[in-house]
């Protein structure tokens, strides 16, 4: 753990970060085919803070190490809130101790970027990616498409709902469960997207509230409740549903026709890193063909179109993705959550 500078002042690193930001932004990323010309780096160690499940991040690190055997990747895994708390605490007492952050949603990264905590880096092969998940300023890049969809228990529900509007039908009264936007950043984001989608908006939320959904803690308990039949219909991220289904749960997923809000689990590099090259190669790997193939194997929808989609998921072309203006979402999120809380009280 001695690679960290406990004593260096934050100011130095912020300044350094600015310089580096300037450099990378000025020079476009070298256009080379990463799949064939990966150069092996010298020994280095990076620390990744992530909310990825332990088994998945372990697999990612293992695959990355096949390409870069000399880079040691230390993983600190925790929920988004715990990660935020740890990063904030580290900022209070000095520097963020991580090199790479792979978690949460773009809003978190926007906030860190505006605090000058992030290094701008455009990953190799950026042209192949879904441009919606690439930060134009280069502070972060989405690594998966994690849409919020409708999940239903196949034992309890005969004709599944296919649209958000279906959920307002009184036949689902008392049967719906969804995550709490106060607790889940993704749920807060969803609330803002729904409010800003013309077809849905506040009127739809009001109708949904009339069906009295159970507001569960986060996505995990929602998918569990739907699989167990406790609440047979849920509003939840799609990969959890696919995994449960694969494990044998009577659960399936419907991608609502109006479109699905999604988060992209971005990755970014902290400006205080002292292993910039290794961190960049890790970011490159995550969005590379190999990295995205692994993501698909791990049940995620990918951010590039050349790796297919997970078993049981429709092809990317068949899914309507809601990609609203992020600034608008950022501006209206607090109000949307407040309105949500009023309605679902």
């Amino acid at each position: 753990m001695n690679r960290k500078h406990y004593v260096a002042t934050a100011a130095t690193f912020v300044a350094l970060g600015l310089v580096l930001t300037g450099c990378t932004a000025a020079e476009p990323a070298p256009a080379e085919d990463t799949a064939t010309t990966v150069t092996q780096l010298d020994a280095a160690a990076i620390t990744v803070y992530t909310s990825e499940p332990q088994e998945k991040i372990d697999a990612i690190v293992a695959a990355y190490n096949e390409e870069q055997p000399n880079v040691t990747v230390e993983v600190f895994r925790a929920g988004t809130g715990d990660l935020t708390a740890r990063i904030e605490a580290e900022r209070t007492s000095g520097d963020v101790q991580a090199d790479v952050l792979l978690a949460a949603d773009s809003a978190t990264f926007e906030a860190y970027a505006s605090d000058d905590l992030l290094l701008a880096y455009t990953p190799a092969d950026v042209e192949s990616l879904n441009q919606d998940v690439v930060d134009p300023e280069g502070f972060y890049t989405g690594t998966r498409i994690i849409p919020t969809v409708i999940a239903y228990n196949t034992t309890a529900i005969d004709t599944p709902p296919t649209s958000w509007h279906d959920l307002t039908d009184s036949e689902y009264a008392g049967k719906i469960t969804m995550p709490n936007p106060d607790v889940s950043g993704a749920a807060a984001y969803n609330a803002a997207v729904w409010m800003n989608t013309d077809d849905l908006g506040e009127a739809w939320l009001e109708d949904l509230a009339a069906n009295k959904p159970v507001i569960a803690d986060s996505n995990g308990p929602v998918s569990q409740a739907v699989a167990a039949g406790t609440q047979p219909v849920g509003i939840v991220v799609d990969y959890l549903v696919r995994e449960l289904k694969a494990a044998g749960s009577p659960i399936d997923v419907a991608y609502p026709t109006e479109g699905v809000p999604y988060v992209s689990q971005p990755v970014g590099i902290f400006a205080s890193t002292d292993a910039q090259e290794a961190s960049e190669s890790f970011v490159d790997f995550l969005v590379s063909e190999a990295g995205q193939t692994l993501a698909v194997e791990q049940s995620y929808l990918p951010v590039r179109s050349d790796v297919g989609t997970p078993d049981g998921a429709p092809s990317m072309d068949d899914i309507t993705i809601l990609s609203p203006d992020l600034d608008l979402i950022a501006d209206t999120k607090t109000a949307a959550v407040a309105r949500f809380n009023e309605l679902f009280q």
Partner: protein
Amino acid sequence: MSPSPTARVAGPVVTDRARAPRSPRGSTRRAGRPDGVDAVRIALWLVVAAVVLLPLGAIVWLAASDNHLPLLLGGDIAEAGLNSLVSSVSSAIGAVVVGTALALLLDRTDLRGRRVLRLFALTPLLVPPFVGAIAWIGIAGPTGSANALWTQWFGAPLWNIYGADGVIFLLTVHSYPVAYIIVSAALRRIPSDLEQAARISGASAIRAVLTITVPLLRPAILSAFTLVAVGNLADFGIPSIIGLPERYVTLSTLIYRYIQSGTVESPLEVIATIGVVLLVVAAAAMVIDMLVSRSRWELDASASSGQILPLGVARLPLTLVAWAGVLAITLLPLSALLTQSLLPAPGVPLAWENLTLDNIVRATTAPATVTGAVNSVVLSVLAGIICAVIGLAIGTLVTRTAARSNTALRTVAMLPQAIPGLVIAVGWLIIAPRIGLFNTPWLILCAYVMAFVAIVVQSVSAPLRSTPMTAEEAARISGASRLRALFDISWRMALPAAISGGTLVVLTAVRELTISVLLLAPGAQTLGVSIFSLQQAGAYNAASALSLIITLVGLAGLGLAARRAR
């Protein structure tokens, strides 16, 4: 020869043998000069300053760096504070009522199968509260098994666990074992003749228990109440899983809202402010506890322990009621855990052909789980030992010696109980780089000690409060210094309580989640974090399997400990 010229009353010397004058053995000491006990007191203050005051100071400093109270007051802090207060106080009342009733029934009557029942009664201690909460939703959630059955039979659900009543119920379930352990330790010290005196005076057995034994248990009941109430203030898992669906927000879930939703500018300062609010509430609780427990009485130091009370005709019905009650609150969630462990995924119907051991294999063979188990066991046993030693020292010092700083010492040791693990962890994270413990297991150990030392302090004070001070005075007269008397007499007498308190710490720490999750070094694991990770990864059934295994291993350990103690 008289050494004092002013002695005017000198009686006849009636000696039948001459005694050689003896030279004084003891050196005279100036009054008030510090002795061994003062040194211990100073050492304890230093320990407490390092392990409690330093991180608390970091939290207070964070909270003070900007005034976030207006923001909080504009938010839900008043409502959340009230909810916290109501839920922790009422669950603590429930816990001491259940704990005391169980202590009386299991330790003082001829209830059938009480030894086995005692083990069952302790199981909620071993189940992580967030796992227990999920298990209970499967039973008493809106479409949980109990409610589904009830709806089938009577057309309406029995009881919806979500909301305030469910939070209070589950907090009670998970904290009554602590109350039971403390009260039961005190019960063993109440001499049976006091009860017998009441019987002779014409009181029925029940009445003797209620009017004599229970009032004599008051110091222990109060200790348990304070510990449980303050501890439940900090609980996060239960209110978050059971309370939030009904919008029942407590201070500890409010903390997560602010840290997780990213809706506030400086979340750390805001949650530190909530932490300080909780500290104030806890300090108030301590003051009340101190005022109420000021009156104390002394019991015979070596009185014989209580007699088993024959229940007579009530034996069978009481046995049935006790077994049914305990099994309902312990075996139901355990069986829910067991079913989940044996099924591949939630929602898979319970049938022979569906049963699988995959989850158990996955839970026990994952490398992360194994290292997590080793870490947890090592850290929690170390924490248990350190807490037992520090708690024993603090508990005896503040109850057996007179010093103005006793109240402060006890309060400081108790305060961290009231703050959620997240806030404790943040406090340690802030000071960690400066003390060179960042990303080491010792940081977690320090935080465990801070969070759990109160358990031992309370376990130790309860029995000591009713022991006469002459026990130490007899040692002083025998030639023991204050320190030696404290060590030979007070500590030795409180040792059993300290050991049971230390065991409680081990059981609590081994499944701890929030502190560990934030303070772990990258790549490290603990058991609580392993369960939580499995849960987050959607491997609910593997998480259940791991919880079940921890519970069963813990039960076996408790059973062995109980056999050894007998």
